[in-house]
């Protein structure tokens, strides 16, 4: 049996439980209540309100992704310099928080950030005035970075730790300083890891309606909130399906640009 046929169960699974359900949603997106064909649901992403939510989600997701990258690189570099067995441990510690329920963790952030919360209590002890960051986009940003940071650190770390020490030594021997080593060697070689990090951070950050609802105080509307509203509040499944399909197309197109150079040779890694 040729090795490529080993993927057969997976392919059956993907077709049965990813592609076909997606087609169901696609059909729902292209029909109206009477079952007639329409483009309206797909195009409704261009409505002023939806477009505004989309742009805002883009801004939030972009900000969240950039912050995650900025936080993840130093962390990954430091983890790389640790002793080998400590390393694996440090990584498990990164995903360990996910064993506490997600909703509970986000509610905990709300308690931390609220006007009478833990953060303001600590700041008050230091003699500074209370911070008003609860129920705002800042709180949403903190929550999103919190939730998605491990998904950036892990792949970036993996890519960085796969870089051969000899490569770095060689660069140093040729006269590169720390900065040059980072920009010319480490960053380019870890780009695939960063790209998988971006995939796992950027999209969820755009659609994480639970974080937006709890930490944004319901005053902030991500595109995910609108999709959720169409499905569970307005009960307009066709519109919800339309928005999700156009969002997906949008995301796929933007990722196609990012990933153009990333297939086969380097590939995506999360570990």
């Amino acid at each position, binding site marked *: 049996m040729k090795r490529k046929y*080993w993927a057969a*169960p997976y392919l059956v*699974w993907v077709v049965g439980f990813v592609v076909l359900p997606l087609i169901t949603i696609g059909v*729902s997106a292209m029909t109206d209540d009477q079952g007639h064909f329409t483009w309206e649901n797909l195009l409704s992403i261009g409505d002023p309100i939806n477009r505004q939510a989309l742009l805002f989600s883009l801004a939030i997701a972009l900000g969240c992704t950039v912050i995650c990258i900025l936080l993840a690189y130093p962390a990954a570099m430091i983890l790389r*310099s640790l002793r*080998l067995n400590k390393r694996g441990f440090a990584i498990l510690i990164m995903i360990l928080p996910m064993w506490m329920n997600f909703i509970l963790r986000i509610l905990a952030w709300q308690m*931390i950030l609220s006007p009478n919360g833990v953060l303001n209590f600590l700041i008050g002890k230091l003699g500074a005035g209370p911070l008003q960051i609860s129920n705002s986009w800042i709180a949403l940003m903190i929550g999103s970075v919190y939730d998605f940071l491990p998904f950036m650190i892990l792949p970036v770390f993996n890519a960085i730790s796969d870089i051969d020490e000899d490569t770095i030594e060689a660069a140093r021997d040729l006269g590169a300083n720390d900065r040059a080593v980072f920009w010319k060697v480490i960053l380019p070689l870890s780009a695939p890891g960063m790209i998988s990090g971006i995939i796992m951070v950027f999209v969820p950050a755009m659609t994480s309606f639970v974080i937006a609802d709890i930490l944004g105080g319901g005053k902030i509307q991500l595109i995910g909130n609108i999709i959720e509203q169409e499905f569970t509040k307005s009960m307009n499944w066709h519109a919800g399906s339309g928005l999700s399909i156009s969002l997906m197309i949008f995301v796929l197109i933007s990722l196609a640009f990012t990933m153009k150079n990333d297939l086969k040779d380097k590939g995506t890694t999360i570990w």
Partner: protein
Amino acid sequence: MVRWKRVLSKVYLALIFLFLYLPILMLIVLSFNNSRSRVTWGGFTLNWYVRLFSDSRILDALRTTLALGIGSAAIATLIGTLGAMGIQAMKRRNYQIVMAVTNIPVLNADIVTGIAMMLWFVRFMPLGFSSVLIGHVTFSIPYVILSVMPKLRQLNLSIYEAARDLGANGVYAFGKIILPQIWTGILSGFFMALTMSMDDFVITYFTKGAGVNTLSTMIYGEIRKGIKPEMYALSTLIFAVVLIILLCTNFLSGRGKEAAEKKQPAD
């Protein structure tokens, strides 16, 4: 200079961990709070831990959650590992298409994946435990593939091909040559799948049948009236158990590695 840098990097790592663990700490504190409200402190108590074990609904949900997590992670690991092996052997074009499809569950909003599966399932099967299981396997597989794939790429496949040429059957060659080399990738894929399954709410909510409750769906039902403190207690326990397991395995593997390193020069 170097020492200063080392201190700084320790501080930085500590800050990242603090950031990740602050809410956890908060929840652990709440599990000892002698008040049903999460915003008032009523003194220290272990009451919730005691009551937890007499609440059959919570224990049922815990059983379901664990069965679901372990079951879906096992299936996802099996299918995903074989899948990764197969995909890697594909031609460039097929490879690209399959990898793009693999990313779909990661790229889609949870709610869309959940509703898509619900709409699809109701056509041919009753919703129940199995439907949630399928749902969880579906969103876990990409994580397994993404963690096995890089290990496969580092693999020297010519040994495997050589074994096949010398008459070893595929399964035997896989078990003898490939498996030992990608084992860590498979394990981390399993752990990741298990974690994702334990943490999921949205997809579970839409694909579950009547009477199937996981801890997340229970917690969701409690949001309005206030989370039951028993839930904080249970979360703390789960967290503690996983932490202890991790500490133990790390300790053991750490010693194993040291021993191996010591042995190496003698080889």
